[in-house]
């Protein structure tokens, strides 16, 4: 095996690591700048509107508690709300979840269940 082959391997790996390490630094630097900038923005928003929530909030119903709801169910409902609202979901708070009674006619419910069963 000649020196040129070893040189190609050595240079190749070194260049690869150098480029990717530089990328790591770039990502870290711009992520830090963005997070600092967004924190400052949040703080100034808070100072300007002390009574207003900075984060997006969604209240399904403010009169309920989470008794009887498993953490998994709460996670699923929160994820569904975040997905339907779009965006990353960062800062979303679900304050309460309340089961609401049937407002749909029973025949519609029966038809819907039948339809869902055919798809399972």
């Amino acid at each position, binding site marked *: *095996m000649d020196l*040129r*082959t*070893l040189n*190609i*391997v050595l*240079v*190749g*790996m070194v*260049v*690869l*690591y*150098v*480029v*990717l*390490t*530089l*990328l*790591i630094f*770039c*990502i*870290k630097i*711009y*992520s830090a700048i*963005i*997070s600092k900038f*967004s924190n400052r923005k949040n703080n100034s928003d808070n100072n300007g509107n002390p009574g207003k929530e900075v984060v997006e909030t969604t209240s399904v119903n403010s009169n309920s508690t989470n008794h009887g709801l498993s953490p998994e169910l709460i996670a699923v409902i929160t994820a569904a709300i975040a997905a339907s609202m779009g*965006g*990353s*979901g*960062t800062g979303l708070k679900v304050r309460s979840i309340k089961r609401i009674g049937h407002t749909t006619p029973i025949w519609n419910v029966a038809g819907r269940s039948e339809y869902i069963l055919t798809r399972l």
Partner: protein
Amino acid sequence: MWQDFVNAVSGLIQESGFANMTPLHLLMIVIACVFLYLAIAKEYEPLLLVPISFGMLAANLPLGELMHPHLWDANPIDYGAILQQGGLFDLLYLGVKLGIYPPLIFLGIGVMTDFGPLISNPKSLLLGAAAQFGIFGTYLGAMALGKFTEKQAASIAIIGGADGPTAIWLTTKLAPELLGPIALAAYSYMALVPVIQPPIMKALTTKKEREIVMEQLRPVSKTEKILFPIVVTILTVLIIPSAAPLIAMLMLGNLFRESGVVGRLSETAENALINIITIFLGLTVGATASADKLSQPGFGLQALLIIVLGLIAFSVGTAAGVLFGKIMNWFSGGKVNPLIGSAGVSAVPMAARVSQKVGQEANPENFLLMHAMGPNVAGVIGSAIAAGVLLYMVG
């Protein structure tokens, strides 16, 4: 009258493909049918293997005139003659030869890729780099065998990048005569990731290491995701200009995705465009595996060695990724599961799924998928950079 009839029929038979069929043609047709079987019955990368193997089949039917290998073997290539005398596959092959299709496939891959896990944990880029040891290790091996030129060895080594379009792109630039076997080996091994990787991953890690549960990744803001493709393009292309076609198109696709303002372009790039290019690319790459090539002295042995070296490249890449994952685990005080290192070989998202599966076998409550996606997409960038470096050094 009878004589005329006999003459006409015998003329037809003599000018048919049957009369011109050689044993090599027959062998290539059988090989193509085996690949078709694997693609359809076993579902090994069918989206690529069906067009590749059908291209191989159609191009090896004598007198079909779909592809003319001698036109491409000319040095320098007479593109005028190709346009005048070329068959359908010759014309479509222009997109491969001129390096157009692989970057366009990268555009679609860019739209489909979420770099969020990588931005969230940038250190995973190092795992993507470690897995590229497979490429350079195999380059050493291929050169040591003495059966390949420098350019051919580099083209074979890139199979270790587990990235079909990158392998095709580099091979058309460096060793187009080996395009057929290299593309087939690259895509076959990508399909075999779930078979090849787990034994290596298990052999190099302890059960305790495989059980490590990693911390949840931080959420990544939209601005970070939009800036990522711009920063990567500027930095990478300025350092390694030869990687520009692949990196620029990959990042353009990702910018389409993350900007959220060009929905129509994203949709086209990730669906219609990538599908059209896959058909053209698969058909023509398959068509380069012709019986004429097989009849060239030494080609059969070279093709066999490519298959073996490709497997070595894949295995070394997987092992290097896992070993680097172990090093990161030691340095982080046991916070990194080494299994995510194997995903650095690219093959998105299959390699990340394998990390998840092997991790979950050790600890059913372990979810490594998103952690493995970081090295996995880093591997795509890493193999494109490695291809650019090899092109610069060897080309």
